[in-house]
C-alpha cells in the first residue's frame, strides 16, 4: 500500500488494522465512513480514509488520499450546500449537511456529512475530521412523502374548490326556492282574500274564509320559521299566543280579552305546519264559535312544561260549543289526522262556561 509511505503525519494513525492504538483501530474498522484532511497542505487534501469510506464511494485508497473531497461532487450537487461547507472550513467551524455525492461508477447517494476541525495543543486547526453516512433511503423517503403531500394538497385544493362551487350553486338554488315559496304563499293568500270578497252566499263565504285562515296559518308558520335564528325548532306556545292576538286584533273586537301565561314549547320544525294548523282550528273555533255573535269574553292560553311533555291549553268562557260538526267537519278531521304525527293528543273539556282544549305535546330533546 503506497499511501503508507506518504503517511508521515502521525504515527497514531499509522497502525495496522486492529494493532496498537485502539481508537485508530476503531476508526479503521467502523462501518461509518470517515476521512481526515490536512488544511496545512495546498487545497486541504484527504490524508486518511477508512475502509468504510472506500466501500461507500467505490474508490480505492490510492485514488482518494491526496485529493480534495470535492471529487465526490457532481452536476446535481447543491451549490449552496457546498458553499456552506467551504464557509465552515474557512471559519474553522463544525458543520452538518446533507449532500448529494457521486460514486466512482457515477451512481449517486445522499451523504449526511459531519465535518469538524481538530485542534492541536496550540489551539490551531491541525486536521478536519469528516464522517459520511449514506442516508439515501431517508432522503428518498422524505422526497416521496413531500411529493405525496404536495399531491394530496393539490387534490384537497381541487376538491375544496369543487365543493365551494357546488355549495354556491346550492345556496343560489335555495335562495331562489325560498323566494318562490314566500311569494307563492303570499299570492295564494292574496287570491283567496280577493275571492272571499266577491262571494255573496254567506255559507260559501264562511267556508272559504275558513280555508283562507288555514292557508294564513301555514304562511305564518313559514314566516316565523324563516325569521327565527334556529330553523330546526319551532315554539308552538309563542305561535299560539301570536295567532290569537292577530285574530282578535284583526276582528276589531275590543270585547275579547286575551290572557297568556306561557313558557316556550319547542317542537321539531317538521311538525310546525301540522301543529300550526291544529292551533288555528282550536283558536278560530274558540273565537268564532265560543265567543260568537259579538259575545264578550276572554281567551286564556297557558303553556307549561313537565318533564318531556308539554301542555298547551286554550280556554274560552264562551257558549261552550265543542266544534260545530256542521261547519267544522273538516276542522275535526284535520285535528284528528294531524296530531299523531308529532305524538300530540288533544283533549276537549266542556266547562261550566266555555270550553278548554288541551294539547299534550312531546317536546323535542334539548341539546343544551
Amino acid at each position, binding site marked *: 500500500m503506497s499511501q503508507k509511505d506518504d503517511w508521515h503525519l502521525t504515527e497514531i494513525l499509522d497502525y495496522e488494522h486492529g494493532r496498537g492504538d485502539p481508537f485508530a483501530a476503531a476508526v479503521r474498522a467502523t462501518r461509518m465512513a470517515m476521512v481526515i484532511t490536512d488544511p496545512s497542505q495546498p487545497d486541504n487534501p484527504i490524508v486518511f480514509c477508512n475502509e468504510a469510506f472506500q466501500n461507500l464511494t467505490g474508490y480505492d485508497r490510492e485514488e482518494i488520499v491526496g485529493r480534495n473531497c470535492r471529487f465526490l461532487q457532481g452536476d446535481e450537487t447543491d451549490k449552496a450546500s457546498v458553499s456552506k461547507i467551504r464557509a465552515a472550513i474557512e471559519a474553522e467551524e463544525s458543520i452538518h449537511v446533507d449532500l448529494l455525492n457521486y460514486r466512482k461508477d457515477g451512481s449517486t447517494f445522499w451523504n449526511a456529512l459531519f465535518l469538524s476541525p481538530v485542534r492541536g495543543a496550540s489551539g490551531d486547526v491541525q486536521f478536519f475530521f469528516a464522517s459520511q453516512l449514506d442516508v439515501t433511503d431517508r432522503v428518498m423517503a422524505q422526497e416521496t412523502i413531500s411529493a405525496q403531500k404536495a399531491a394530496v394538497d393539490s387534490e384537497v385544493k381541487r376538491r375544496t374548490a369543487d365543493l365551494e362551487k357546488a355549495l354556491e350553486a346550492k345556496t343560489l338554488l335555495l335562495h331562489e326556492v325560498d323566494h318562490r315559496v314566500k311569494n307563492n304563499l303570499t*299570492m295564494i293568500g292574496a287570491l283567496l282574500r*280577493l275571492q272571499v270578497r266577491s262571494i255573496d252566499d254567506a255559507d260559501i263565504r264562511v267556508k272559504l274564509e275558513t280555508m283562507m285562515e288555514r292557508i294564513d296559518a301555514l*304562511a305564518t308558520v313559514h314566516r316565523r320559521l324563516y325569521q327565527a335564528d334556529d330553523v330546526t325548532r319551532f315554539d308552538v306556545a309563542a305561535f299560539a299566543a301570536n295567532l290569537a292576538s292577530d285574530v282578535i286584533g284583526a276582528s*276589531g*273586537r275590543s270585547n275579547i280579552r286575551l290572557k297568556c301565561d306561557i313558557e316556550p314549547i319547542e317542537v321539531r320544525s317538521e311538525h310546525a305546519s301540522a301543529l300550526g294548523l291544529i292551533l288555528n282550528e282550536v283558536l278560530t273555533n274558540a273565537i268564532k264559535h265560543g265567543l260568537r255573535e259579538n259575545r264578550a269574553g276572554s281567551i286564556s292560553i297557558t303553556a307549561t312544561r313537565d318533564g318531556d311533555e308539554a301542555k298547551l291549553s286554550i280556554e274560552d268562557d264562551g257558549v261552550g260549543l265543542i266544534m260545530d260538526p256542521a261547519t267544522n267537519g273538516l276542522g275535526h278531521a284535520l285535528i284528528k289526522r294531524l296530531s299523531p304525527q308529532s305524538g300530540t293528543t288533544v283533549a276537549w273539556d266542556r266547562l261550566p262556561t266555555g270550553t278548554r282544549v288541551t294539547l299534550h305535546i312531546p317536546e323535542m330533546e334539548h341539546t343544551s
Partner: protein
Amino acid sequence: MTPPPAVFKALQVLIVEDEPLLAMDVEMMVEEAGHNVVGEAASLYDVEAMETELAPDLALVDMQLARGTNGLDVSKLIQDRWPSAVIVFVTANPKKIPEDFSGAHGVIAKPFSRSGFLSALNYLGEGIADPPPASTQPSSFVASPSVRDIWSARAQIDR
C-alpha cells in the same frame, strides 16, 4: 258592526308594490280597515311621477320593485317629498333591510296573514293618530329601532 277604537283616524295610504294581485289585495285590506288608498305605484319612477299634494300618512313599500328599482330608494324619495309619512316595508326578505331601516319606520314580513296584516295596520293607525299605540305590537309588525325608542319614550311620559 264593530265599534271603532277610541281614537280612529282614516289614514291616507300609498301602496308601492310591483305585483298587481298583491297590490289589489293590500288595497282592499286597507280600505276594509277604514283607510283610504291615495296612490299605487309599481316602481320608483311611478312614485317620482306622483303629485306632491298627495301627502300620504302611511306608505307600504315592497323592497323589490318593477323596472330594477327598490324600496330603499323609494323610501328615500318619500322622506324627501313627504317627510311626515310613516314608511313601512312589506317584504319577503326582511333581512335585506339595513339595521337602522334607512329612515323608514318598520316592516311587515311576507307571507302575511289577513289577520296579521290587519293587526299591523290597526297598530300603525293607533301609533299615527295618537302615539304610542294602545295595543301591544303584533308579531306581524316590527318597528324600526328609532320608532321603538320614540314610542317607548312617549309611553314613559304618558305614565
